């Protein structure tokens, strides 16, 4: 237990599903974190399409609820909040845009330029402008962390960078999209065709109304780019990935795979030779990559530790917030 407390003031930009999760997790864990790590997390600003609220003493629960209800639009912009309200860490949780990286890209640049550390779950800016953003962070003497952008709660970037430090990583392959894994698992288990399972997944909120990015492999590819850049030091973009999705997978194919002792999974695969590939692959039933439902999994192949496999929940507000929180604590320990 640490007695000296350091106050860490946080802004949350983008108050959707993950942003809410972050606020919730900070509220739940604040005391435990203060006593364990000696840091007092205080949310001093939230920006969303519904409005922007700020309080340098820390936002009250009432103010946050009023913002959510649309009753408290405030009178500044998100960028003003990032620039002008004094704080330490900006949490960027706006939706991903793979093509432009916006609005996250501008938020991150503004925050770094204003001397804030940045913790984000947003894949777009990290996949698109990784090198530029890391250079900018270094120039400003600030950190940019993005564990939540790949694999949700499943630790992978910090696992490689911290726990496996000293190892050379030769490849990472795994299931990085829970929606595809759910669809393929359900098709195989229940003998239901693709279209049927997709509709079902949309109804229970596992697939989006426009599922293209998930089922065509785009989401997996973007995460692979982030791993390629952050773990393998490449300077890759989405265009460097060979991408095949799961829309063509037939029930017959799943059955034939089953007969031969395999399952079909959408696998993202990156290696130190610069190969970046997303494609449905046959996974032996007894391989650790054979995980079911919406779970994510990754096998990291290293020169010293051999193969390490991590499995975890790839999506969900609290799960993503868990990765954001560990990034924040990591900044101060």
């Amino acid at each position: 237990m640490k007695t000296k407390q350091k106050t860490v003031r946080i802004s949350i930009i983008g108050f959707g599903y993950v942003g809410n999760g972050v606020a919730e997790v900070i509220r739940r864990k604040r005391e435990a974190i203060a006593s364990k790590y000696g840091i007092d997390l205080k949310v001093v600003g939230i920006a969303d399409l519904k409005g922007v609220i700020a309080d340098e003493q820390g936002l009250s629960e009432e103010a946050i609820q009023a913002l959510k209800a649309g009753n408290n639009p405030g009178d500044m912009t998100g960028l003003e909040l990032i620039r002008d309200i004094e704080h330490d860490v900006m949490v960027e949780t706006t939706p991903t845009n793979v093509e432009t990286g916006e609005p996250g890209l501008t938020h991150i640049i503004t925050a770094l330029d204003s001397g804030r550390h940045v913790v984000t779950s947003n894949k777009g800016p990290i996949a698109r402008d990784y090198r530029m953003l890391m250079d900018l962070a270094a120039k400003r003497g600030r950190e940019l962390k993005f564990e939540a952008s790949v694999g949700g709660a499943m630790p992978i970037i910090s696992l490689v960078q911290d726990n496996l430090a000293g190892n050379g990583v030769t490849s990472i392959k795994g299931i990085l999209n829970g929606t595809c894994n759910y669809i393929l698992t359900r098709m195989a288990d229940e003998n239901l065709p693709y279209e049927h399972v997709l509709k079902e997944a949309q109804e229970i909120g596992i697939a989006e109304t426009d599922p293209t990015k998930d089922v065509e492999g785009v989401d997996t590819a973007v995460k692979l780019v982030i791993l390629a850049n952050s773990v393998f030091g490449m300077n890759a973009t989405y265009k460097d990935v060979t991408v095949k999705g799961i829309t063509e997978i037939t029930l017959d194919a799943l059955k034939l795979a089953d007969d031969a002792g395999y399952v079909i999974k959408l696998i993202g695969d990156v290696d130190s030779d610069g190969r970046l590939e997303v494609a449905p692959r046959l996974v032996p039933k007894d391989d650790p990559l054979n995980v079911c439902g919406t779970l994510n999994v990754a096998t990291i192949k290293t020169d010293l530790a051999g193969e390490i496999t991590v499995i975890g929940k790839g999506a969900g507000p609290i799960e993503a917030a868990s990765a954001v929180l560990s990034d924040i604590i990591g900044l101060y320990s």
Partner: protein
Amino acid sequence: MKVSMSIELKDIPGQLVLALQPISDFGGNIRSVVHHRDKKTPSGRIPLQLVLEIEDRNLSVLVERLKERGVNVVRIGEERLMDSMVVLLIGHIVHSDIRETIDSIDRTGFAEVVELSLSMPGVELKSSASVTISAVGTEELKDALAILEAAAEKKGIMVIASI
């Protein structure tokens, strides 16, 4: 190619090196050596079981060299089709002449399609197939997969390979 070989060595020191040295001299790769010290032949020699990979053309000179060195070569057998893998295909497989694709793999001499299961849900619908390919070694298996992928791409057939 992969070869298994039974040889017999004199029971005096230095014989194992004498027998193995020529294999590496000819670029061979020894995969396994089993030394049967407890199963001496009536003439007092020690049997040795070898599995090695070596270029076709170097095999007969290797055997000659071993004989020159006083090593008895009792048996040579080619270990064919040591490695295999399953690949799935999805698309208009039959219409696009799967026979030709199989032939292109069989013609290589180092790989063969040893099993094929096909599901055809209807004339207009895409069919699915699982194909088992066997080859003499891992590298050859990769080559065979590349041949299959190239043929499938031309025909608009999706290939699902193993991880």
